[in-house]
């Protein structure tokens, strides 16, 4: 410890040492200092914009992350637009919208339409809006956009998608400066609004985990991205859903209790509890407001377009929840159908798939379910749109 070790040699200091402030001549240039600070802040925003508002970093987002998956799907579908011809239909939704592209691709010979999916697992209508804005900037590229919806009637649940910050992590690369206020105000609680605001202003904050993971293995990430850009469309095209099913599941709706057959996995049981057996909550209209806002914006965007907006009700589950469990007060989707260009598919079209043998868990279809759903969807879209060049059915 040098200060201690050499202490014996130290002389005692003066009573009052002259202050450094006394020795310097004050040169005050507050304007210059303020300018420097402004320049520093602008430079920081510039650096953020250079990295995160261009393709520089968004092209190497982790493909397995929310933002990365959305970007990869967007890239794949934009690439597909170049070769898919004029009669292109895109479907949007979350993981429940999954179907087999290969099966749908067999249909163009019969229907004349190429149906592609831009569904992103875990996403919601807010993310679909921002994604669609960049997927179809002219709002004229598609013959139809098909949205897979859980229900035509609105049921508020304990989880509120209007306050789900995951939307930021899906859309972060798509958000523009002009979106900042609107996007952040679309959340409900102050804390989430603030998180959305700062994440959309300084995208580095929202992408922290991704950046840190990239810095840990930059070469591996780049190699993986290259591989994805080469093979990912093929992987997704050839993906085969599991054959696992929910056969044997029984539900006592009066007590909200399920009986599971032997061999059912925890994932299947958890999804049953969360999706089918959840408690009802007071119906406040929050979900309706959320759907009206975001799907309404989509409808507005395509108001004068040739593109039709089609809603389909997805198969509700291996054993659908009875309607008497909750009194649903509104139907934002049916309201939307009154707008031009918006069409509702038959609500009961997929009722035939609401059986345990077609579901891999309580939420998602299995291989058989997906194959049937996929073909039925392509046929229904073709029926609604009519033959290419003809008039759409309503």
């Amino acid at each position, binding site marked *: 410890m040098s200060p201690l070790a050499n202490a014996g040699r130290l002389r005692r200091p003066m009573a009052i040492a002259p202050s450094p*402030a006394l020795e310097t001549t004050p040169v005050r240039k507050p304007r210059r200092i303020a300018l420097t600070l402004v320049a520093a802040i602008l430079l920081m925003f510039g*650096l953020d914009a250079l990295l995160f508002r261009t393709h520089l970093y968004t092209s190497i987002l982790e493909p397995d992350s929310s933002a990365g998956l959305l970007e990869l799907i967007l890239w794949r579908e934009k690439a597909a637009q170049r070769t898919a011809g004029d009669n292109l239909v895109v479907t949007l939704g979350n993981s429940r919208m999954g179907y087999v592209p290969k099966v749908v691709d067999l249909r163009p010979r019969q229907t004349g339409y190429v149906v592609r999916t831009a569904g992103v697992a875990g996403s919601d209508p807010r993310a679909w809006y921002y994604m669609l804005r960049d997927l179809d900037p002219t709002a004229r590229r598609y013959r139809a956009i098909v949205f897979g919806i859980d229900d035509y009637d609105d049921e508020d649940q304990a989880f509120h998608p209007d306050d789900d910050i995951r939307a930021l992590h899906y859309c972060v690369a798509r958000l523009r400066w002009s979106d900042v206020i609107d996007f952040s105000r679309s959340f409900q609680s102050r804390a989430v609004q603030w998180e959305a605001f700062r994440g959309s202003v300084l995208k580095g904050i929202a992408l922290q985990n991704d950046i840190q993971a990239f810095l840990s293995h930059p070469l591996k990430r780049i190699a993986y991205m290259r591989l994805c850009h080469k093979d990912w469309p093929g992987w997704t095209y050839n993906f085969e859903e599991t054959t696992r099913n929910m056969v044997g599941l029984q539900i006592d709706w009066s007590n909200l209790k399920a009986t599971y057959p032997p061999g059912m996995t925890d994932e299947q049981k958890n999804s049953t509890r969360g999706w089918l057996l959840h408690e009802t909550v007071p119906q406040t209209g929050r979900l309706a407001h959320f759907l009206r806002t975001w799907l309404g914006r989509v409808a507005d965007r395509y108001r004068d377009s040739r593109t039709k907006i089609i809603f389909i009700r997805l198969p509700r589950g291996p054993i659908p929840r009875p309607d008497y469990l909750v009194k649903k007060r509104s139907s934002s989707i049916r309201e939307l159908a009154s707008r031009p260009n918006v069409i509702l598919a038959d609500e009961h079209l997929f009722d035939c798939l609401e059986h345990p043998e077609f579901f891999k868990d309580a939420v998602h279809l299995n291989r058989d379910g997906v194959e049937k759903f996929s073909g039925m969807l392509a046929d229904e879209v073709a029926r609604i749109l009519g033959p290419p060049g003809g008039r759409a059915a309503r």
Partner: protein
Amino acid sequence: MLFNTAHFFLFLAVVLALFYSSPRPLRKYILLAASYFFYGSWNYRFIPLLLTLTVIDYTAGIWLEKVPPGPRRKTVLIVSLCANLGFLGFFKFYNFLGSNLAWVVDKPASAFFLNIVLPLGISFHTFQSMSYVVDVYRGEQQAVRNPIDYALFICFFPQLVAGPIVRARNFFGDLWHWQPPSAEDVSRGILLMTLGLTKKMAFADQFAKVANDYFKNVSGNPGWLTAWSGVVAFGMQIYFDFSGYTDMAIGMAKLLGFHFPVNFRRPYLAASITDFWRRWHISLSTWLRDYLYISLGGNRRGRWMTYRNLMLTMLLGGLWHGASWNFVIWGGYHGALLSLERVFRGNRPVRDDWNWFYPLKALLTFALVMIGWVFFRAADLPQSLQVLRQMFRGHGHLLLANWHLELMLIALVLAVVEEKYDGFERVLKAPMLAYASALALMFFCIEVFGVIDASIPFVYFQF
């Protein structure tokens, strides 16, 4: 009100605006009110304690100047020191002594336990106050006549809760001959505040997450690699945390026209433990040197007395940090290392020239300091021993991700650049765009690495 929160920056902005928009005679009252508000925002119930200590030492200073040298004068000094140490001892060491007494008389550990809340920053402001009284006693400092001035010296908010421990002569020099900060002071202040914020949010808090996870579950994380990475993470956390806080405190003071001493000089580049203590928490080590080591005789009474003085100083320095055997052992460990170095070096001055052996010596010093941090961070003695055992057996896995290591590498490069080329001063004197770029890079670093939502308190706030 943590320094790295929006609330604090709002508070600082208001204080700066009020300070500079008020007539000069009012400014110290504004600082005093702001300081008490800052302290009260943590726990207003301790303001009377702070005021009591202020009154005692203010009065003691005036008495010491009036009373001629002799036993009465010494009595005044002792009364003042006893009051300071009494408060410090009660709040900080009562339960420690009580539990040890309970062990000696074979009673349950809680037999003498009192539910005492430690007043924030008591160790810092008590030492600062004591140094003033001792300086007046020694004739090195004039007694302060204006109670407002003295109260401000004790509770000045930038350094109230975690230092640096400012000497009275420096503080009153600045206060009594206050000059508006020069453009260079303001530039330095802003750069220091940004640097401190970056150190805290982007470095310290990230390493804190790793260290906290490790020390929360030591037995679940066996192996030397795991243990070393957990301990190194804490070593990084405490350095960036404390030096970050200090940088912010010094920077804030600069903006208000005050000049605090440097508290850290790249301690992990030290090539010996002696050198480490020249670079680590300098305001404390010089305090201990001036008021304890020299009082004990320093190195003027032979080798063995020097070793004893070193050991005693470091043991008390350890105990200053907290009331537990871990801190005593930490202090004793450093005292022993300093003594050992003294044995080998004799009376030759410390020479740590940069040569080919320097990195090796620095690495060894770093490892020794890390071993010391085990006692500093572990919850208790058994956990310290468990970590130490793990540091030298088994394999384990690295708790730090590659990007943590990259952060450490960047910090090392910057430290070497600063050490050899005075990088900070160069940035200060650089053209506006270069200075602004340095600030922008630090802001960006906070953006992509800063721990923003989790509120991780400064380590030294607990002392």
